[in-house]
């Protein structure tokens, strides 16, 4: 398609992004106007500059471009659209999702290990929401399924790609503290009778609840055996 001479390409791109209810990949924009991908990126940059003091913005979402209202004016938009309650993910769902996002591909047992507790129910909710999907099987005994995040995950969080996730690392101050406590641990006297006594209490103290728990687990093992 060719444009009339007096229309700059970014106008066509602006119109395409405005009209599309879903993000548009750069390749599609390029194909529509016979532009190179590089040119498309330039035009989008120009469009971005033109929109910088407006209520709309162009964002890269899941590797594609989308024209969206700015979050600062959300209350106004929500009033017009009569948005009542937005469905947000629960704390557990976010927790499991972040583990999948950072450790993908990940199996169920690995997920459980990272949380210290079973995550099956939350995982199936995330699968239903299409935020997580199966991404093959691990070469492990039983060939368990592996899970990863979907495109919808990127869209939902407004991420351009997985590389947008912040690095999962300690900041420097945390490292210093770690060294400090390491030294401290060297200074720890090897045996302290009070501590020993407390440990003994921890293990064998008058703990009815613990006893009950152990009995319950033993019973469960018997049933399974």
């Amino acid at each position, binding site marked *: 398609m060719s444009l009339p001479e007096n229309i700059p390409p970014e106008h066509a791109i602006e119109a395409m992004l*405005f*009209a*599309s*209810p*879903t993000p548009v990949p750069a390749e599609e924009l390029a194909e529509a106007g016979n532009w190179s991908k590089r040119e498309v990126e330039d035009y989008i940059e120009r469009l971005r500059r033109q929109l910088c003091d407006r209520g709309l*913005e162009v964002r890269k979402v899941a590797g594609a471009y989308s*024209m*969206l*209202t*700015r*979050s600062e004016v*959300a209350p106004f938009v929500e009033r017009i*659209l009569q948005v009542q309650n*937005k469905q*947000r993910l629960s*704390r*557990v769902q*976010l*927790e499991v*999702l*972040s*583990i999948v*996002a*950072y450790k993908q591909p990940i199996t169920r047992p690995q997920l459980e*290990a*990272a*949380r*210290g*507790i*079973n995550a099956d129910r939350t995982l199936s909710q995330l699968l239903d929401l299409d935020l997580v999907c199966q991404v093959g099987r691990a070469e492990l005994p039983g060939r368990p399924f592996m899970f990863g995040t979907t495109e919808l995950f990127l*869209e939902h*969080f*407004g991420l351009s790609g997985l590389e947008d*996730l*912040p690095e*999962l690392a*300690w900041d420097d101050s945390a490292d210093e503290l*770690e060294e400090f*406590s*390491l030294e*401290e*641990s060297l200074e*720890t006297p*090897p*045996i*302290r009778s009070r*501590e020993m006594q*407390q*440990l003994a209490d*921890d*293990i064998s*103290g008058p*703990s009815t*609840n*613990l006893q009950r*728990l*152990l009995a*319950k*687990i033993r019973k*469960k093992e018997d049933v399974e055996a």
Partner: protein
Amino acid sequence: MEQEIDGYKVQLPFFEGPLDLLLSLVEESELDITEISLSAVTGQYREYLELLGQLDVEIESSYLLVFAQLLELKSRLLLPEPEPDDSHLFGFEEEPDEDDLVARLREYQLLKRAALWLAEHEGQSLARYPHPSGLAEPETPLLHTSLRSLHSAALRCLKPRKPFKEPIDYRRIELSVPDRVEQVWQTLQQARQQGRSRTRFSELMKERGDDDRPLVVVTFLALLEMARRDRVELFQDGYLGEIECEIKPEARAFNPARVSMN
């Protein structure tokens, strides 16, 4: 979670698992995650375990497992360090422990931070709205249905059906597709001579009634076969509409209609 203990009502915060509990205990006491700090909160961890009450045995045992690891860690800290030279004698090695609670808890803390980061971005992302229009695809075929076709569909549904016969009769189908092609061809020719160019599928089924499933299938296959050979043209008015067929002008002279199946 709320529990009645010795008449006092105790408000317990809800934790997402043993690591969550342990992390919050360590953070509450404003310590870093080290072996020392973990062993320091072992007592509090146990207190929480006492208050945990009846939960699913799977969940309870996850809490218990971490408690056992805490005790193991604490007892190791309390033992005298082996002399470096004796370490081989006693079988002690400085090995990286895969079940290392400290490492797991640190990672869990990072992942929880990541979850917070995601929550923040979810909020921002949900506050940005796309343009809702665009040519949306019709969600259901019903949107394109006229009142009349809905009415006739309702009538078809309400028509009493033959009761389900038992036992099911597994007869061999005596009619082959080539035979049926011949029959259909004759019906179409007759209809054309009577001045009707298009013939409805239901008319083809007239003599046997459309409860004859095998015949419906064979007739449908016959029509497809004829269409494939450019003998007829098939029409359908929309989704699930009735199929109509018409002999193609260039095929009118064609006779006999019998096709060889290959």
